[in-house]
């Protein structure tokens, strides 16, 4: 075991941190959110220049050749800076789907375009009735002469509005909760029959509801095997859990640093509040919780390459619970320690709080996974 980043990983973190320090202050971030896309096109190009948009892709696709560890480290830095660009949606989620299930041609075309910054994608799997159940898919795809016709609707698709292409799951056989019969399709976001309604989410990124009516796709747009899409969905979700666990650690680090700083400057009853033991112990608790969360983010990262599916699912669930609970505790404490100012929109801590709240329920919340874990107790 070795928990220290390698020299290459250290260089990567440093370069990302430098870039964010120069370009991603809280004030700058506000201007990015105000752009029409809800994020900065200039930053997206900069990510591409720095090789981040191909971070987990092989070099033959213009990628950096990194793995889950590199994604975790970059997501941690993104978490500290509250990055709003669709890195998770495009590179991690769609990227994982394509890497896992894509044909040679699909990988060549899509991964290369993502890496160079010319293609944004979104992963459109969740449906309104499904909550966190990955098999609950009622969007259907029916075979016809031209390939497949898609009908249905998807909800809270992260960055669905900004995407050029979508990865859409649909049922090609079986019943609503069946594991088999789910197929993934690559759908042009502007294809006839695709309607997107974008909205702000609580963390100041963008989500979209997407309806598909009579959307024609070709046979070449099938991603992976027909009916065997669930394994890919699971791989995408696992990658998402690992990446957002890293992001949560970054957010916790930022909240703890802000709280510590605030405790040194905020004077009450004639002394900085950081001199009071009750505040010190709360901040010690926040630190301990952050470190336990970091351990769990490492677990999730480690499990990306785990081949035994049961072991992988079990540990991913544990990581999701641990990281989610840790993030919630640190976020609530950070606002509490700040007092009134922590409640204000102008101050950053509340923005971290909201992102932590969103991360907690991406791909399933702690209560959901705790229930899954409870089923395995023997």
């Amino acid at each position, binding site marked *: 075991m*070795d*928990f220290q980043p*390698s020299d290459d990983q250290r260089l990567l973190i440093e370069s990302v941190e430098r870039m964010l320090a120069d370009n991603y202050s809280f004030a700058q971030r506000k201007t990015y959110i105000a752009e029409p896309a809800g994020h900065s096109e200039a930053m997206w190009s900069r990510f591409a220049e720095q090789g981040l948009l191909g971070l987990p892709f092989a070099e033959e696709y213009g990628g950096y050749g990194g793995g889950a560890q590199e994604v975790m480290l970059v997501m941690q830095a993104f978490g500290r800076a509250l990055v709003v660009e669709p890195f998770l949606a495009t590179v991690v989620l769609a990227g994982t789907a394509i890497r896992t299930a894509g044909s040679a041609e699909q990988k060549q075309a899509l991964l290369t375009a993502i890496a160079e910054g010319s293609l944004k994608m979104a992963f459109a799997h969740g449906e309104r009735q499904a909550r966190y159940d990955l098999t609950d898919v009622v969007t259907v795809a029916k075979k016809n002469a031209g390939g497949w016709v898609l009908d249905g609707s998807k909800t809270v698709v992260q960055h669905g509005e900004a995407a050029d292409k979508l990865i859409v799951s649909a049922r090609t056989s079986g019943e609503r909760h069946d594991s088999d019969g789910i197929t993934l399709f690559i759908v042009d976001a502007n294809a006839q029959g695709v309607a997107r309604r974008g909205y702000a989410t609580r963390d100041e990124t963008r989500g979209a509801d997407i309806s598909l009516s009579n959307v024609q796709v070709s046979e070449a747009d099938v991603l992976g095997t027909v009916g065997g899409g669930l394994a890919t969905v699971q791989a995408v979700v696992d990658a998402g859990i690992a990446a957002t666990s890293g992001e949560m650690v970054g957010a916790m680090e930022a909240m703890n640093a802000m709280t510590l700083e605030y*405790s040194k400057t905020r004077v009450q009853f004639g002394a900085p509040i950081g001199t009071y033991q009750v505040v010190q112990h709360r901040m*010690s608790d926040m*630190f301990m919780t952050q470190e336990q969360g970091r*351990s769990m983010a490492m677990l999730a990262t480690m499990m990306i390459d785990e081949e035994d599916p049961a072991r992988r699912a079990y540990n991913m669930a544990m990581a999701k619970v641990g990281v989610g609970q840790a993030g919630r505790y640190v976020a609530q404490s950070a606002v509490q320690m700040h007092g009134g100012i922590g409640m204000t929109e102008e101050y950053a801590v509340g923005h971290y709080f909201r992102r932590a709240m969103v991360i907690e329920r991406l791909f399933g919340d702690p209560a959901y996974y*705790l229930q899954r*874990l409870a089923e395995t*107790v023997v």
Partner: protein
Amino acid sequence: MDLRFTPEEVAFREEVRAFIRDNLPADIRDWMKLGHAPRKEDIVRWQRILNAKGWAGLSWPKEWGGTGWTAIQKMIFLEENQVAPAPELSSFNITMIGPVLIQFGTEAQKKRFLPRAANIDDWWCQGFSEPGAGSDLASLKTAAKREGDFYIVNGQKIWTSTAHMADWCFVLVRTDPNARKRQEGISFILVDMKTPGITVRPIISIDGSHHLNEVFFDDVKVPVENLVHQENKGWDVAKFLLGNERTGIARLGKSRERVNASIDMARQVNANGRPLIADPAFRQRVAQLNVDMKALEITQYRVVSAYDQAGGSGKPDPLSSVLKVKGTELLQATTELAIDVAGPMATPIWAQELEALNEPDDLLEASSASVGSYLFLRAASIYGGTNEIQKNILTKAVLGL
């Protein structure tokens, strides 16, 4: 970063597990499985088996009969040993006085005491705390006055675990009452418990057990050759010892063992007309403990692998305070789980009833014993620097306040 165990570490775990399975006396294992604390003879018997194998000197260098293991290997051993469940190595002998003598002892002290400590030919105890010096150790008052070739020791120690069984005690004494700072003027001496003038008085714990004692020193003569390190430099020794004490303090294997025992019990007791193990609330509680244990396990490996990478000589990692706090909270939570499974059967003290039974009743015995560790381990968040003190340490070391 490589977050997996190496093949060597995996093989090592197998080796440890197999050795414990094949060599741990069944009567000790069965006794502990029921939730009882090991008896003195159990601890001695098992440590001698381990010592014969060369596994007693856990953190000692090979030249003194130690294992020479990496910190990760040590952690693996501790986990496997606790989860077996087997008696833990005497911490006084193995993680306290052993490393202290190896670091600070004279050649003669090492030769005289180390082999006997490894084999528990001497049972050691720790004379640190005093009525007026608990978490604030430096305010200790027990005095040692040099007279010729002896120190004359007068004073009182308290919370001295297993002093009533001990052959020797390492004691912090004040040798210079006029020192500029309280920490200067303290010395670390080794005291034979058979020396005239020592009185040991039991303190009965809330679980009814006799583990703790008061130790009174009344003109106790200690040869100056039993001074460790230099006179008035005992605080350095104490700090070294307390730093060592913290590395294994998460006791994760013990927590796992308690959860396993609770699950065993939950299979046998009924709640609402079905086995408790089928109750979703119970299962969720176990699941939450599993999550917390996993997080602590990884945090622990982060600490020990950093220690190995620093060549085993790194500064005390502030994360070890996280291990102490989270580890003891978890340990306490697992004992709570056990008494909640025991339910109403946790309340009676069954000692005589159990003895009168012709056939052993494991469930009854485990239910009754579960309360013992629940009560006894309330001390876990108090000893080794209370959890509040750990947060003070974190405040300084991590927050810089």
